[in-house]
């Protein structure tokens, strides 16, 4: 009987996926995507994760977890399963799964959707669950420590270096997304700026007025944030204030850089912690609201299944379907960053080892579901509108008329009047060239929410969505800069031990400054690049995030083989092979492609030739040397990152071979088992 139910689920799921893939027509209802996703997740969770838990990892409820054995009432605390689930989900779910699918929608709804589903149940969820398990068995050790203990120093250093680079690129690209959402938008800018004093106020409340009362402070803070969204509308319609907040992208980039530095050196309780509480509540609330609205509304998808841009000529980012759809989706399918979260706080909270399945596999499944919703929100827009929002002026033309002519000529009709009407409805002067994914997602979310809750509030929903994205992008920016600072302080302490004192102010200022300068550089170049910057930065971020996943999967595979589970090496080994193929071929294209839209070196050479021939307009000639240097630097970075992944893989293969030949390898670093006495 039970089996029969799963056969029915499989048939419905197969039917929905088949329907999605074969459907050809003007529109398709998003219920197909929702049903396909629900069935894939149900089967993945019920069958695959159960099998991994029982056979591969052999989760053992009688074995005491670190939280139980080392309970200190602080970081090691046995915690309710669903509370841990909430914390873990809040930690892994950032802006990535919202932005990646929005950008990948340029290929059509199908490729991205399929990869979000397949990549998560076979790759991302498995990675998160396995790393969480390995770390739990090692008292909550970090990924880098596990690599050092189990494989040797090479893997450990590679993991740390990879993390630092990805952090810098990640923050730069997220900063660019916020800048593009705020540029020449007095409403958006004033709302996002208002989040800073609100966070400070909440920080003071939780420290001085009612220490540690997170719940009441957050309710107050979220109410203030909502008031800031409405207040932004008042700023927008006020003649004098409007001008103050009408800023261009370079000014905004400097604001973000300055903000990042200040946030990194202020005490955490003042800005970072309260902002994080607010963003977590907003995130959980909005994701829930979006899920309910999408299910109630079941909007029609207007984007075709596949667009002509699978050939690599896409306006949002260049590159062919393989490998770039896999690079672009990033966090919604598999994210190397999760391996860092899964080997930190979460393992120290588990009461029961068996919870690893729902927390590791289940949280990632939910994140993948968020990515599916982002895909729906992006593809329900008319494709012409979607491309008008997301294409950079360097590609489609700087004026509204030029842009709509170019985009319509691709077969995605759109008119300047239509874009103007949409912008007015959203309370903006223009929506052209708002690249980075956040604005088009906000338009999609606003149209979903206003269809469910009433059309009159469109502009407020739009700016709510912008504020929602900006708040947790800025949280990631603060937190990432801080983590980068700690890693840098640790590295510098080998040169000068005093630098390692994490609270010594000169060290704090120097190392924070260096990290902010690192991402600030990429952000600045992204802003001055006439092709929009996203085209360079997002693939760079995607490659580095997937490489980190490769490193994590490699370490996991090595430990599986070492711990007598070599029969099941493929559970993490096959996703590793796939991720390696994807990232290596993407890196190859980015470095050696002769197409200047695709290859960093080709672009640098083309620009250098144009500069030498004097054919560039003066404004572009002024920034050309910086752009040329940046493209060469990007090529170098990609080579280094790919080399790191291959070094880790070779090191893992070396250790695995020794295991299979019976030669000595570093010992298993698992903590000894303590069996819980089960009371009858």
């Amino acid at each position: 009987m039970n089996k029969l139910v799963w056969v029915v689920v499989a048939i419905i799921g197969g039917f929905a996926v088949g329907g999605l893939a074969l459907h050809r027509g003007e529109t398709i209802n998003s219920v197909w995507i929702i049903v396909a996703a629900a069935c894939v997740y149900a089967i993945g969770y019920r069958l695959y994760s159960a099998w991994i838990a029982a056979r591969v990892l052999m989760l053992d409820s009688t074995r005491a977890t670190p939280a139980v054995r080392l309970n200190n009432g602080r970081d090691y605390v046995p915690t309710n399963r669903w509370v841990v689930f909430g914390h873990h989900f809040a930690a892994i779910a950032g802006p990535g799964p919202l932005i990646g699918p929005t950008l990948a929608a340029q290929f059509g709804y199908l490729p991205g959707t399929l990869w979000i589903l397949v990549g998560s149940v076979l790759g991302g969820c498995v990675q998160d669950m396995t790393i969480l398990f390995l770390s739990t068995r090692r008292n909550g050790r970090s990924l880098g420590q596990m690599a050092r203990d189990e494989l040797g120093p090479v893997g450990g250093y590679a993991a740390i270096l990879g993390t630092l680079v990805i952090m810098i690129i990640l923050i730069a690209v997220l900063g660019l997304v916020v800048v593009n959402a705020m540029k020449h938008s007095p409403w958006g800018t004033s709302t996002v700026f208002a989040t800073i004093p609100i966070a400070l106020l909440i920080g003071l409340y939780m420290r001085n007025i009612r220490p540690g009362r997170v719940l009441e402070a957050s309710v107050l803070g979220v109410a203030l944030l909502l008031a800031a969204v409405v207040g932004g509308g008042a700023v927008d319609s006020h003649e004098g204030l409007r001008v103050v907040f009408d800023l261009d992208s370079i000014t905004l980039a400097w604001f973000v850089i300055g903000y990042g530095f200040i946030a990194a050196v202020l005490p955490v309780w003042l800005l970072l912690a309260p902002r994080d509480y607010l963003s977590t509540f907003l995130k959980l609330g909005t994701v829930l609201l979006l899920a309910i609205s999408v299910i109630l509304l079941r909007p029609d998808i207007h984007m075709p299944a596949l667009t002509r841009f699978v050939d690599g000529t896409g306006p949002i980012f260049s590159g062919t379907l393989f490998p770039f759809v896999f690079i672009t989706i990033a966090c919604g399918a598999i994210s190397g960053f999760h391996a860092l979260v899964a080997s930190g706080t979460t393992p120290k909270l588990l009461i029961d080892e068996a919870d690893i399945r729902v927390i590791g596999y289940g949280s990632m499944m939910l994140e993948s579901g968020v990515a599916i919703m982002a895909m729906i929100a992006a593809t329900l827009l008319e494709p012409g509108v979607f491309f008008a929002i997301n294409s950079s002026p360097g590609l489609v033309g700087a004026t509204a008329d030029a842009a709509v002519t170019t985009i319509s000529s691709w077969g995605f009709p759109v008119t300047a009047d239509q874009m103007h009407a949409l912008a007015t409805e959203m309370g903006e002067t223009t929506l052209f060239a708002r690249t980075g994914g956040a604005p088009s997602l906000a338009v999609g979310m606003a149209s979903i929410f206003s269809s469910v809750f009433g059309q009159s509030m469109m502009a407020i929903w739009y700016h709510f969505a912008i504020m929602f994205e900006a708040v947790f992008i800025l949280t990631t920016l603060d937190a990432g800069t801080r983590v980068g600072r700690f890693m840098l302080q640790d590295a510098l302490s080998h040169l000068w031990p005093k630098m390692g004192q994490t609270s010594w102010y000169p060290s704090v200022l120097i190392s924070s400054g260096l990290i902010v300068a690192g991402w600030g550089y990429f952000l600045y170049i992204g802003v001055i690049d006439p092709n929009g910057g996203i085209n360079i930065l997002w693939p760079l971020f995607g490659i580095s995030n997937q490489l980190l996943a490769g490193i994590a999967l490699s370490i996991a595979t090595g430990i599986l083989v070492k711990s007598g589970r070599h029969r099941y090496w493929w559970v993490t080994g096959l996703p590793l092979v796939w991720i390696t193929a994807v990232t290596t071929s993407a890196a190859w294209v980015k470095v050696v492609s002769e197409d200047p839209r695709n290859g960093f070196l080709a672009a640098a050479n083309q620009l250098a030739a144009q500069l030498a021939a004097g054919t560039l307009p003066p404004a572009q000639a002024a920034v050309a040397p910086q752009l040329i240097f940046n493209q060469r630097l990007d090529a170098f970075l990609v080579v280094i990152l790919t080399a790191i992944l291959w070094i880790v893989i070779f090191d893992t293969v070396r250790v695995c071979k020794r295991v299979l030949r019976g030669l000595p390898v570093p010992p298993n670093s698992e903590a000894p088992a303590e069996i819980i006495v089960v009371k009858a």
Partner: protein
Amino acid sequence: MRDRLRTVWKFIRELATDDAYDTYLARHRATHPEAPALGRREFYLSEQHRKWSGIQRCC
């Protein structure tokens, strides 16, 4: 019904880490009754410091 509401409230407090100090205090009194415990504010500040010294947020 009352019990169920109480369970939900307890869950929400736990999720928001509102009960962290109570948990700490209970644990502290059980294991080191002789040593002075941190005050609510000191505990909150040191927890924030500990929490944000590692990787807490992802992309």
